[in-house]
């Protein structure tokens, strides 16, 4: 059976190794097999994940791998990894303020460290250091508080003076005469970047090898419930699919999907923009973030400068954003890195991010039996991808939240037990 060969690691899904790369190279790279199947939807699954981004694919992967669920599907209205997974600025870090946040982001960080090996897929995790710049007295106080909180939690984060920041990142302008002078910085050395597309592809390939059906171009247009109110299946553009468990991992479109089951969410969706420059020789050795001026930048291995800008002021599903938002970011970038002033920007784009009132995610059960949700990662979900998928897989598979995910309930907005990274992280996170 083609399927069996597929899973045994022979035939269609060749493992990546130095040897396979060498031999495929000799043959002009023409004979690489497809990395995952493209199956038609079955009439029923044990569980369905809505949204084939990094978080959704990771969820399916861990459900199959750690919870033995093989009869599951991941549905996406477009192509896998085509939403925020393909649109973010690829930054990975775990230096959040509150214990609950630190725990989940650190959980992700530990998974990042071994992810390429785990997936047999090079996700290009590069712990090159994430440096967050302080521009005023308030920034200094907030960042030092973060540094202390992180170190108490056993997470590396250190305070640098402006001169030390310059020594770590020579391109940085620490002149005192700029609009937002650099007073100091918080540095997480284990932070860095990972290749966003490879994360989605690696999880897709991994999930597929366990028999998970990844079904693209299959938009969920309704959620059917039984007489008792529990989920009974999803209506899609490719027909009805029965299931008793649905995990919604739809990022910016979560409110839309949840409304199909009559569940209102504490979410607002905003366009968040990013852009890349023309590729140049290696010039920037780390990730630099500035929350105050709302700009962050790193250099991809291809040589492009990857720049993150801010969100628009208003909710929107347009996947674009106002040019003035980008220009404000570029003004700041040009001051902080005068060397990039004459570079040309190649592309800019927007993704729709689902923002919660406390800027912390929602991972767990909903009032509708069988309906689970993993959302609210806002402007900073990429870094959490492996951890988010890992804990949400537990939630969907067992019906109860993973201990790390337990504080991130939907119910916290009723009880008032918010995890307020909004005040803690200012805007960018």
């Amino acid at each position: 059976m083609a399927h069996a060969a597929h899973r045994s690691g022979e035939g269609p899904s060749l493992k990546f190794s130095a040897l396979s790369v060498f031999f495929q190279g000799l043959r002009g790279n023409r004979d690489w097999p497809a990395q995952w199947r493209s199956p038609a939807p079955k009439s029923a699954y044990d569980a369905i994940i809505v949204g084939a981004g990094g978080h959704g694919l990771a969820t399916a992967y861990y459900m199959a791998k750690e919870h033995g669920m093989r009869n599951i599907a991941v549905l996406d209205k477009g192509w896998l990894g085509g939403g925020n997974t393909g649109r973010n600025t690829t930054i990975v870090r775990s230096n959040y303020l509150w214990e609950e946040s630190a725990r989940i982001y650190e959980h992700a960080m530990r998974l990042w460290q071994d992810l390429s090996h785990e997936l047999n897929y090079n996700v290009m995790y590069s712990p090159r250091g994430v440096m967050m710049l302080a521009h005023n007295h308030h920034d200094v106080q907030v960042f030092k508080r973060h540094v202390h909180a992180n170190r108490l939690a056993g997470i590396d984060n250190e305070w640098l003076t402006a001169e030390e920041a310059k020594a770590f990142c020579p391109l940085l302008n620490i002149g005192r005469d700029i609009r937002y002078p650099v007073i100091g910085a918080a540095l997480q050395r284990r932070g860095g970047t990972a290749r966003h597309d490879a994360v989605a592809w690696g999880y897709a390939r991994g999930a597929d090898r366990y028999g998970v059906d990844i079904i693209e171009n299959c938009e969920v247009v309704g959620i059917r419930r039984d007489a008792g109110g529990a989920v009974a299946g999803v209506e899609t553009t490719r027909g009805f699919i029965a299931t008793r468990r649905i995990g919604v991992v739809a990022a910016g479109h979560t409110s839309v999907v949840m409304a199909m089951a009559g569940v209102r969410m504490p979410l607002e969706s905003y366009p968040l923009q990013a852009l890349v420059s023309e590729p140049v020789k290696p010039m920037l050795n780390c990730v630099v973030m500035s929350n105050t001026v709302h700009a962050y930048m790193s250099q991809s291995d291809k040589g492009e400068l990857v720049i993150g800008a801010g969100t628009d002021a208003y909710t929107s599903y347009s996947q674009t954003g106002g040019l003035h938002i980008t220009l404000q970011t570029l003004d700041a970038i040009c001051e902080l890195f005068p060397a990039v002033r004459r570079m040309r920007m190649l592309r800019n784009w927007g993704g729709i991010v689902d923002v919660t009132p406390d800027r912390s995610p929602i991972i767990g059960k909903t009032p509708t039996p069988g309906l689970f949700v993993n959302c609210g990662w806002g402007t900073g979900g990429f870094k959490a991808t492996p951890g988010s998928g890992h804990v949400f897989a537990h939630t969907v598979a067992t019906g109860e939240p993973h201990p790390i995910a337990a504080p991130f309930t939907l119910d916290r907005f009723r009880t008032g037990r918010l995890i307020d990274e909004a005040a803690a992280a200012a805007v960018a996170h």
Partner: protein
Amino acid sequence: MLLIHCPYCDAARPELEFRYGGEAHVARPADPATVSDEAWAQYLYFRANPRGLHAERWRHIHGCGRFFNALRDTVSDRFVAVYEAGAPRPDAAETKR
């Protein structure tokens, strides 16, 4: 950048003159002490966040300074109607152009 029509100034102005105020017609419970936690959470945090027509508040902060409401399509970002604060949400069919 959006071009927004202020119903008080009766003029189209660039978005930078305005501040976004979130979903419109979210009424504060008249007597907060008597509402349930669930209802209070709905008022404070839960939002429609629709893909499509959205009734929302804007404030012409660098102009007349006043609040008004607008109906905007959140996919195209096109404004369908603007109306004064306190006025009911216009019927979507009426505002089709």
